[in-house]
């Protein structure tokens, strides 16, 4: 039995074991057949205060990715809570390829800390993949469960999980109150970081995780602010003549691409995060907007109607060389690039229905992964395996949800009954 012990509340991990290895690397975009049947067995012992239990949180995390098929574990007699004496035949008969078992105990009655000990077990190979123990505060119950999900995900896909990350979004109440909110990736633990009476659009989380850039109409026109998440302080990045909008961070978080209408039409500029060194990227009479910085730091994807209808293009920031990226469909907008630079997601108008589409940038194969009719604002998870987007609930109220990049799982993120729009996804941090 291998144990990795993480001390969550110190924010560092103490571990004595072998490095994490990938067991079965799943081919992403592989279709329905690749969904791994996995049983998350109810954890023995303490339960969370209110809310979901650990196995429900882990199940729901893995289910979102479209790569797992969590099995129903209700009514299982004598559920195991460790990897000792596992009845492999029984689990195999249930079609489970893997199971996760665990228990929640009081670690220290004085501090109130809890410890969660868990194992991921391979039913086919009849062996334990990994066992770990997490210690944390009671209030970190959900965070620890998400950490378990991250570990299961990484062991079974070879990629980091995003279950411990944060998202941000704009909440709009009665067209009068706007707030920028930060929450766990699944919508829990939300809190406002800005309240205003004017629209907020295009929040973008810096890759280093420290700041969010956004567009506010507080000055009766769009201007760009950068807000430090630790101090809560914000600085005005761009308040030039005309509109200031569409901030996009460079991979090193030192620069942003922004859009100004300084010379009347929307054009893309680059600017240092401290507001210095503004430079126009290219010139055209057409609309150039929605920049999205590629992870190589040299290419910026953007939308433009230079060919008549809006399409996605990319420009090299060193030589202004422009090439067209999307060819399928007559109306493609809102590019977002995966963190390995291999996948592009965008909004496509499919015969009047606005859907999220994904394009493999090597094969240029395109797959529509949402149904519409009024989806918007697709943005990649920091591992490139999930997409955050907005849809109209019952055709009316805009809400956020995730869709797996294979298009199999589209699930809402519930953060209340107001209009929820313009989401962004924070980076993976420790």
């Amino acid at each position, binding site marked *: 039995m291998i144990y990795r012990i993480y001390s969550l509340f110190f924010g560092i991990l103490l571990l004595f074991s072998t490095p994490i290895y990938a067991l079965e690397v799943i081919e992403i975009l592989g279709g329905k057949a690749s969904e791994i049947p996995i049983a998350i067995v109810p954890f023995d012992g303490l339960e969370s205060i209110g809310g979901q239990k650990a196995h429900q949180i882990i199940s729901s995390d893995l289910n979102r990715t479209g790569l797992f098929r969590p099995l129903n574990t209700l009514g299982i007699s004598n559920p195991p809570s460790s990897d000792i004496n596992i009845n492999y035949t029984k689990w195999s008969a249930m079609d489970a390829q893997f199971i996760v078992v665990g228990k929640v105990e009081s670690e220290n009655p004085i501090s109130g800390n809890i410890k969660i000990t868990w194992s991921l077990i391979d039913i086919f190979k009849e062996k334990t993949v990994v066992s770990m123990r997490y210690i944390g505060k009671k209030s970190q119950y959900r965070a620890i469960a998400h950490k378990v999900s991250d570990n299961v995900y990484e062991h079974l896909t070879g990629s980091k999980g995003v279950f411990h990350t944060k998202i941000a979004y704009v909440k709009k109440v009665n067209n009068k109150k706007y707030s920028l909110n930060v929450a766990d990736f699944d919508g829990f633990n939300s809190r406002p970081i800005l309240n205003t009476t004017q629209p907020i659009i295009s929040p973008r989380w810096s890759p280093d995780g420290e700041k969010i850039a956004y567009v506010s109409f507080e000055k009766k026109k*769009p201007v760009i602010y950068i807000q430090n998440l630790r101090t809560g302080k914000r600085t005005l990045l761009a308040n030039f003549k005309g*509109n200031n*909008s569409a901030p996009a961070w460079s991979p090193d978080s030192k620069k942003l691409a922004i*859009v100004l209408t300084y010379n009347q039409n929307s054009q893309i500029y680059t600017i240092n995060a401290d507001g210095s060194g503004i430079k126009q990227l290219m010139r055209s009479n057409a*609309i150039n907007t929605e920049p999205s910085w590629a992870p190589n730091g040299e290419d910026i994807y953007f939308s433009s109607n230079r060919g008549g*209808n809006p399409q996605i293009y990319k420009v090299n920031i060193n030589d202004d060389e422009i090439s067209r990226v999307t060819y399928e469909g007559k109306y493609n*907008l809102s590019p977002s690039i995966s963190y390995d630079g291999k996948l592009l997601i965008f909004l496509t*108008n499919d015969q009047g229905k606005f859907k999220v589409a994904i394009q493999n940038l090597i094969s240029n194969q395109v797959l529509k992964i949402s149904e519409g009719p009024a989806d918007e604002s697709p943005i990649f998870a920091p591992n490139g395996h999930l997409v955050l987007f907005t849809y109209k609930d019952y055709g009316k109220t805009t809400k956020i949800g995730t869709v797996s990049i294979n298009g199999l799982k589209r699930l809402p993120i519930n953060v209340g009954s107001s*209009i929820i729009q313009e989401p962004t996804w924070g980076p993976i941090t420790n």
Partner: protein
Amino acid sequence: MEELQLKKSLLLLSLLALLGAGCSSTPLDAPGDPSAASGKMGVDAATAEALGLEELRGNTLLSQRSVFFDFNKYDIKDEYLDLIGAHAQYLNNHAPARMIIKGNADYRGSHEYNLSLGQKRSVAVKDALNALGVDDSQIETISYGEEYANQECQADACGQDRRADITYEVE
């Protein structure tokens, strides 16, 4: 005294025009909000006369302020040429008058693209006014994109949001 005030505001306007012209020929300089800097002019009798306020309020064509567009389009339809012609004539006859054109878009498509589209619509109206001899310094173009649009409109009703609104600073 009134005349002096008018001269002052005229001077301010031409200074702003000069600044505006200077800005567009050089790279970006210090950030600043031109609409905040100019503010509203006081409307005394002489100013009202100079601005032709009575005409602005009384004229049927001048009281029409919205130019509507097709989905994802910003070309001006022929039916709005009379309206634009009337506003051009008004601006040409009243040099101190300043117009702000506010572009809008329906909710469909992205917030950012719609901001750009709204801007294209306000610029299209401005270009049409320029073609009729209106000076650049008299017109400011801005865009609200889809931010104040009806988020639940269906089909043709969304057309109400695809528009550029003409406003005058004096109003």
